[in-house]
C-alpha cells in the first residue's frame, strides 16, 4: 500500500525565513541526498558567503546572490505518516504571481511571521490569498524566536493580532507555533527554549493536517479536454476525454453536455493498460465512448442527466486577484479560461476593490496589480460553471491579457444571461442533430418559457426535429437562411 501524498505551501513576508524553515526541515529529517549539504557549504565557501539553510532551496544564482527567493521550488520530504511535496513560495511583493503559482498547488499552508519584525504587509496579503485559493488548513509559524530571547509575550502578541486579522477573512488557523528555524528549535523536535509552549512542533503539525475531503460525493463534472479518433492507426473508437473533477460515473449512465445541452449515454470507459472498468470517479483522466454519436467538443462539461447541473450563463459575479502589470479595465476584451473552456470576456462592473494587506476598500473602476476585487464578468458566449464554493474546479478561472495569465478568480454568484429565453445551438455539419430524446433538462427549459433556436444544414434532419417537437408537444417554426435552416422551438 502506497503512502498518501500532501502538497504544502510555505508563505509569508520577505525575509521572515520561509526557505530556512524548509531547509531546516529537510536537513533534520534526512531528506537531503548525501553530499548536498556539504556541496552547498562548499559553494558558499568558494563564493565567500556565510552558509544558510535557505541556499538548499534558493538554487538560482540570482536568488543566492540577493538572498531572496524568486520562484517557488518543489521539495520532497517524508514523515512517518505521509510523503510531502513542500512548495517554497517567494515573499517579496514583486513575485506575488510566483507565490500564487506555488500556493495554488497546495492543500495546506504554513504561514511564517518573523517574531522580531512582527506582522508585515505580505503576512496579511498572503493570508488573504490563501483564503481565495481555497486553502483552509493553515498553521502560523512565528520564526526567529531566538532574536527575541524566546519571549512568550512577543509570541502571544503576534498570535493575538494575527488571529484577529484571520477572523476578518474567515480563516481559523490550526495552530500557532513558535520556532527558531536557524537554531532548529521546534521544527522537528520540541526545544528546552520553549518550556512555556505546550503545542506541537512544525513536523507534527503537518502530520495533523487532513487530506481534503474526497470529491467523489459531489455532482459529476467532466470538462471535455478533447475528442479523439485515431482512425489512421486502425482504431475506430471515438473517445471523449477529460479529467473527472468531481463525482463518479458508470457505464449506462445518461449524460448531458453543457452548454450545448446534447445528451447521450456512456457506452464504455476507456483507459490504456488497465482492466476494463464499469465505474470511474474524481481525479482520473479516462476516456468514454458514447451510445449515440453526438458532436461535442472541448469546452463543454459532461454532467449526469439525473443530477444537479452547473449554471449556464454569460454573466457571473466573481472575486478576482490581479497579477498583470497593466491594470484590468472595464470595456477591454480579455480571455477567460475556466476548466477547459476559453472565451472572450469583458469586465462589466467593479463592485469594490480591496487592498489585501489591510482590507481597506475603494470604488475605483479598474483593478491594479496585486488588487483583489469583487466584480461582474460578462462572457461573449454562454458557458457552464459552478460556484467555487460548490465545486472548485468548475468555479474558478484565470484571465489572459494578450499572451499572459494576468488574473485569477472564483465565481461567487450566478447572474442570468441578458438574452433571457433563447438557447442557441449551431448544429451545422451534423447529419442527425437531434438526439434530444434523453434531453430532459432541455425540454424542461423550453417548457418553462425559453426558446430554442437551432441552425442546421442537413435538410433531412428536419424530419427528426419535427418528430421530436410533436412527441413532446412543442411548437416549432422554420425559415430558410441561404443553405441553412433556422428552427425555433417553443412551448
Amino acid at each position, binding site marked *: 500500500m502506497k*503512502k498518501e501524498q500532501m502538497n504544502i505551501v510555505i508563505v509569508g513576508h520577505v525575509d521572515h525565513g520561509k526557505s530556512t524553515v524548509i531547509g531546516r526541515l529537510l536537513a533534520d529529517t534526512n531528506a537531503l541526498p548525501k553530499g548536498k549539504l556539504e556541496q552547498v557549504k562548499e559553494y558558499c565557501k568558494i563564493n565567500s558567503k556565510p552558509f544558510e539553510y535557505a541556499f538548499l532551496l534558493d*538554487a538560482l544564482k540570482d536568488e543566492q546572490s540577493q538572498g531572496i527567493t524568486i520562484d517557488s521550488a518543489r521539495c520532497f520530504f517524508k514523515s512517518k505518516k505521509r510523503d510531502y511535496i513542500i512548495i517554497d513560495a517567494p515573499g517579496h511583493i514583486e513575485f506575488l504571481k510566483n507565490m500564487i503559482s506555488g500556493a*495554488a498547488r497546495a492543500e495546506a499552508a504554513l504561514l511564517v511571521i518573523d517574531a522580531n519584525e512582527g506582522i508585515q504587509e505580505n503576512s496579511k496579503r498572503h493570508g488573504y490569498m490563501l483564503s481565495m485559493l481555497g486553502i483552509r488548513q493553515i498553521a502560523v509559524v512565528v520564526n526567529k524566536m531566538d532574536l527575541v530571547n524566546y519571549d512568550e509575550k512577543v509570541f502571544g502578541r503576534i498570535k493575538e493580532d494575527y488571529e484577529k486579522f484571520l477572523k476578518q477573512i474567515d480563516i481559523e488557523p490550526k495552530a500557532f507555533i513558535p520556532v527558531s528555524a536557524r537554531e532548529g528549535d521546534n521544527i522537528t523536535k520540541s526545544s528546552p527554549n520553549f518550556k512555556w509552549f505546550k503545542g506541537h512542533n512544525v513536523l507534527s503539525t503537518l502530520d495533523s493536517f487532513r487530506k481534503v475531503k474526497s470529491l467523489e460525493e459531489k455532482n459529476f463534472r467532466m470538462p471535455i479536454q478533447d475528442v479523439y479518433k485515431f482512425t489512421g492507426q486502425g*482504431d475506430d473508437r471515438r473517445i471523449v*476525454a477529460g479529467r473527472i473533477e468531481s463525482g463518479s460515473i458508470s457505464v449506462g449512465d445518461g449524460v448531458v453536455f453543457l452548454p450545448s445541452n446534447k445528451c447521450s449515454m456512456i457506452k464504455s470507459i476507456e483507459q490504456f493498460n488497465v482492466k476494463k472498468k464499469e465505474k470511474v470517479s474524481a481525479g482520473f483522466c479516462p476516456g468514454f465512448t458514447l451510445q449515440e454519436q453526438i458532436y461535442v467538443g472541448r469546452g463543454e462539461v459532461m454532467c449526469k442527466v439525473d443530477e444537479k447541473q452547473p449554471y449556464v450563463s454569460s454573466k457571473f459575479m466573481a472575486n478576482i486577484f490581479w*497579477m498583470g502589470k497593466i491594470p484590468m479595465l472595464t470595456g477591454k476584451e480579455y480571455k477567460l479560461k475556466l476548466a477547459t473552456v476559453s472565451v472572450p470576456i469583458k469586465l462589466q462592473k467593479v463592485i469594490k476593490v480591496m487592498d489585501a494587506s489591510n482590507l481597506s476598500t475603494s470604488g475605483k473602476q479598474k483593478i491594479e496589480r496585486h488588487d483583489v476585487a469583487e466584480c461582474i464578468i460578462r462572457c461573449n458566449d454562454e458557458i457552464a460553471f459552478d460556484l467555487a464554493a460548490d465545486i472548485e474546479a468548475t468555479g474558478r478561472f484565470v484571465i489572459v491579457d494578450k499572451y499572459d495569465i494576468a488574473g485569477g478568480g472564483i465565481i461567487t454568484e450566478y447572474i442570468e444571461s441578458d438574452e433571457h429565453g433563447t438557447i442557441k445551438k449551431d448544429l451545422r455539419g451534423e447529419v442527425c442533430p437531434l438526439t434530444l430524446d434523453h434531453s430532459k433538462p432541455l425540454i424542461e427549459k423550453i417548457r418553462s418559457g425559453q426558446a430554442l433556436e437551432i441552425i442546421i444544414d442537413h435538410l433531412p434532419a428536419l424530419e427528426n426535429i419535427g418528430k421530436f417537437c410533436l412527441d413532446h408537444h412543442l411548437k416549432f417554426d422554420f425559415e430558410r437562411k441561404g443553405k441553412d435552416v433556422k428552427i425555433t422551438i417553443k412551448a
Partner: protein
Amino acid sequence: MDRLEELENQSVYIIREAYKNFKNLVTLWSIGKDSTVLLWLTRKAFFGHVPFPLVHIDTHYKIPEMIRYRDELALKYGLNIIYGENAEALKRKTTFPDGKVNRIECCRLLKTEALKRTLSGEWPRYKFDHKKKKYVVDKNKEPYTGVIVGVRSDEEGSRSKERYFSPRDKKNEWDVTDQPPELWNQFKTDFAPGTHLRIHPLLDWTELDIWEYIEREKIPVTKLYFDQGKGKRYRSLGCYPCTKAVDSTAKNVKEIIEELKTGKFSDIAERSGRDQDKEDGGGLETLRRDGYM
C-alpha cells in the same frame, strides 16, 4: 487515489493540454527511464497511441546499447522517431572527449545547440522509415513549437523551480526570474510569435516514483539500469565519457526500488554520477537558461 495514481493522472492531463494547444508538438526522448515513462504516459493519455513524433538528440557518445534500445522500441510501438545531431562539432572534434572543450561547453554544443537547431528545422532531421527500417532525411523542416521534456524537480535546483508549461524566447532562452503564473491547471498557451514552450509533465515525480511506476505498469526499460553480473549498473544514463556506472548488484526493478528506499542509494543524489553538474556550481542553471533540457 494513491500517490502514483495522482501523479499519473496529472501528467496525462498536462500531455493532453499540450497536444490540444500545439500543432507542432514533439516529445524529447533521451531513452532513459524518465523519458520512457513519459512515452508510456503519452500512451495512457491517448489510449495506446503516440500522436506526435519523438525527437532524440544523438551526441554520438551515447552508450551504444541506448541507441539499439531506441530503435527496438521504435519498431515495437511503431513510433514516429526523429533524431538530430551537431554534425559540425563532431566533424571538427570540438568535444570534451577529444580534449578541445570542457564538459559544459561539450554539453552546450552536442546537446543544447543540436537540440535548438533540430527543433527549429535549420539542421537536418533524420526520421525512422518503418518500411525501409532505417533513418532517412526528414523533408519536414517546420519548426516545433512545443517540446515535451521529462525533467523532474528533484533532479537539481533549477528544475525544482520550473513550470509545467515553460516558455522559451526566440533564442530558446529561459527567463527564470520572470516565469508566467500557473495555477489551477491553467497553463501558458498564448504566446508571441517566435516563442516556444517546454512542457514538463514529470515535475512532481521523484526517482523512486519513476521506478515504482515502471514496476506497477511493467514498462520495458533498457538493461543498462540493471547489474549484468559485474556488480555495476547505470543509475542515470547519458554520454559515456561523463556518466559513471555505480556499484550495485540490483538485477531488476524490484531490487532497484529496494536499493532506493532503504539501501545504499536512499540518501545519494541520482545525478551524482553526472560530471557536468559539478562544473556548474552544483546545478544546471547556466546550461538550462541557454536551452539545455
